[in-house]
């Protein structure tokens, strides 16, 4: 009897703490049962590669969300940085791939820095500042290419998004690498503490001698930088610079972060949650496509899955 009770409590606390993981597992089991080919190494790698771009954006978004901010411009930054990287990476320009990568990263970092300055030093609400940037960065991207695709990219550049190291597609390796770095940054460094503190209670953080403005500014730079990286990978994957690319990606990135249990009001969050968040999105998209669900039903089912996955997280609170 006693044991039983203990176990029950154990399960309950587990669901309360790791509800989204349970959600992910349920979704995966469902797809596996429905479609045998879903749970194969090949398809899992395929799914991970597809999700790597949203993954990078969601990681950057996690930093932003932890400070209580939001970054609506990530999709546009993906577009801008991808376009500028493509312009450099064209075979006719003859630059090495890493220079193009660098250009993409710098464009992302720069646009992110502009966001950061406007938000932290000019005190414009993050929603407005990044919404403005969403529009501005897209406008710049169109101008840079006159809205036309930029094809003919160098081989080296194309392997960033298309290549593999042994078994593993490079985008997945990049994602894992970024995850490790960001995990260390958030949990093992002073900077990470300051990010949490800034989001948790900016006044207390300021009183403790933390440069709250600088921290706030920096998270948008991180988000911009990772968007830049995502832009380069995306461009490389689609083999040409596209003015429209990244359009609307911000929604998925924010969704991944929030599904993972990061509170949009800041201070409360977890990087592993974000990972589960973007995995849920990735599995969902891949699985529904594999099952060949009609596109209208996909919309309905996706909505239900997103809500359902999070509900597991909150169900326990209700009982309290």
């Amino acid at each position, binding site marked *: 009897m006693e044991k039983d009770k203990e176990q029950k409590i154990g399960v309950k606390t587990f669901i309360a703490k790791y509800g989204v993981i349970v959600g992910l597992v349920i979704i995966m089991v469902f797809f596996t049962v429905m479609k045998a080919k879903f749970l194969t190494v090949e398809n899992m790698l395929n799914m991970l590669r597809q999700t790597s771009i949203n993954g990078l954006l969601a990681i950057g978004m996690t930093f932003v969300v932890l400070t209580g901010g939001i970054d609506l411009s990530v999709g546009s930054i993906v577009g801008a940085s991808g376009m500028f990287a493509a312009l450099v990476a064209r075979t006719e320009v003859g630059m090495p791939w890493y220079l193009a990568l660098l250009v993409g990263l710098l464009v992302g970092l720069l646009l992110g820095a502009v966001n950061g300055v406007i938000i932290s030093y000019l005190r414009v609400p993050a929603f407005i500042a990044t919404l403005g940037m969403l529009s501005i960065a897209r406008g710049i991207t169109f101008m840079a290419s006159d809205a036309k695709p930029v094809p003919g990219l160098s081989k080296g550049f194309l392997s960033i998004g298309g290549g593999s190291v042994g078994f593993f597609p490079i985008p997945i390796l990049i994602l894992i690498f970024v995850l490790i770095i960001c995990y260390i940054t958030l949990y*093992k*460094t*002073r900077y990470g503490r300051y990010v949490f*503190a800034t989001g*948790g*209670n900016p006044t*207390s953080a300021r*009183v403790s001698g933390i440069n709250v403005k600088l921290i706030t500014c920096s998270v948008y730079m991180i988000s911009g930088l990772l968007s830049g990286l995502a832009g380069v990978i995306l461009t490389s994957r689609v083999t040409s610079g596209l003015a429209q690319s990244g359009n609307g990606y911000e929604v998925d990135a924010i969704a991944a972060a929030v599904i993972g249990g990061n509170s949009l009001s800041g*201070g*409360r969050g977890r990087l592993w949650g974000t990972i589960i968040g973007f995995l849920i999105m990735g599995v969902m998209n891949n699985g529904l496509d594999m099952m060949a669900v009609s596109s209208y039903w996909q919309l309905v089912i996706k909505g239900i899955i997103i809500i359902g996955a999070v509900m597991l997280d909150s169900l326990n609170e209700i009982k309290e």
Partner: protein
Amino acid sequence: MQGIEKSFNSVQVLQGINFCLEQGSVHALMGENGAGKSTLMKILAGIYKKDKGTIKIKESNVDINTPKQSQELGVAMIHQELSPIPEMTVAENIYLGREPGKGLFLDYKEMYQQTEELLKSLKIQVSPRAVMRNLKVADQQLVEIAKAISLNAEIIVMDEPTSAITDKEVSNLFEIIEDLKKHGKGIIYISHKMDEIFQIADDITVLRDGVYVNTWKAKDINQNTLIKSMVGRELTEIYPKEIVPITEDMLELQNFTKKGKFEGINFKVKKGEIYGIAGLVGAGRTELMHGLFGLDKLDTGKVILEGKEVEIKSPKDAIANRIAYVTEDRKLEGLVLEMSVGQNITLPSMKKLSKGLFVQEKEERTIIKEQREALRIKCSSERQLVKLLSGGNQQKVVLAKWLIKSPKILILDEPTRGIDVGAKAEIYKLMCEFVGKGNSIIMISSEMPEVMGMADRILVLSNGKASGELSREEFTQEHIMKMSVEHI
């Protein structure tokens, strides 16, 4: 500090303040709510910028613009209103901004170890790994104290450090202060508790309405003179307890239980009675009242109101049964900080103040005006945001909002926390008037003199269990203390 002036939005709150702290002494800063004590200290701590005046530390002029500068100059402050970072652990909060570690990286082991030692040396029983959000107000305050002390500062400002803790912790704090004094530190101590002041202060400075009044040696002044200089009028009696007829039963709680919080609590409150509940921090008093008011679900428990059993499932039900609850944490549970003073006062009374759906603004204004005057709430207008009021005035707003509900039972959870002596006396008088009309009060207080001064009977809780009930003749500090630790 000399000639300090400060105004907010062209309202002068400090005017020519002089203040001098000596090494190795405790200097008490006194004054009514809104006198400007916290503001003065926040200038010292670099949170506000002064408009005029000079600050000298150890004979040299200093310029303090940011909290960091202030810290570097050896100033640490325990804030009255600042809350910690709720999602972080105790250790992380204490070492925020100066985490131990190499280069960019943190050394958690070191941090937790240091915190453990620190808390142990201060006799604070809180786990370094506990998340702040899960701590009770009292423990949060203890952590704030630990944090300020750990800064190893030359000057420590304590802005009402004992507002949330009970006598045991207070005496512990005083030991620490004595120790700091011995090490030549200077301490600025703000409190509204008179006995504390006379127990530890060497010097006392009084402010009134943002103006400097005077500085005395503590031994040269008695309580009445001090109060008079603060309040500007004679205050004969602090506890104006009036004996009113105590008649039939008003409220009975039967077998109140919530696992892990409190167990098998029974008591009766009579009409005309002030029923005190005493106990140590974490005894479960607040939780018990949450249960009564319908804020938390009970495991078992019956409420009998004037002989009839009533069901209270939500605060709405409680209010409908004319129970009112002045919560212990005014910022978290009492006020809507972004709303005006007036709107906060009338919030629970909206139904009464509306015709159909519409708010009767004229009526509303009259009631607000009455309350502002009755409780002497100090604010620039009823439309001022309540977050801009001083702590004491905020508390009065919470009181006001319940008094206009004309409840039959008023639950007061630490009702005078952070309130100045003048206002305290007013609140006590209001309490007497209230029960005089045949109503009842349940009062929780960690200030022993207050419960003993005001209550007709006292229930002592210890670790969630009732250790017994005392009638007025049986009240002694020792008695209550002994019962408080009975079940620990």
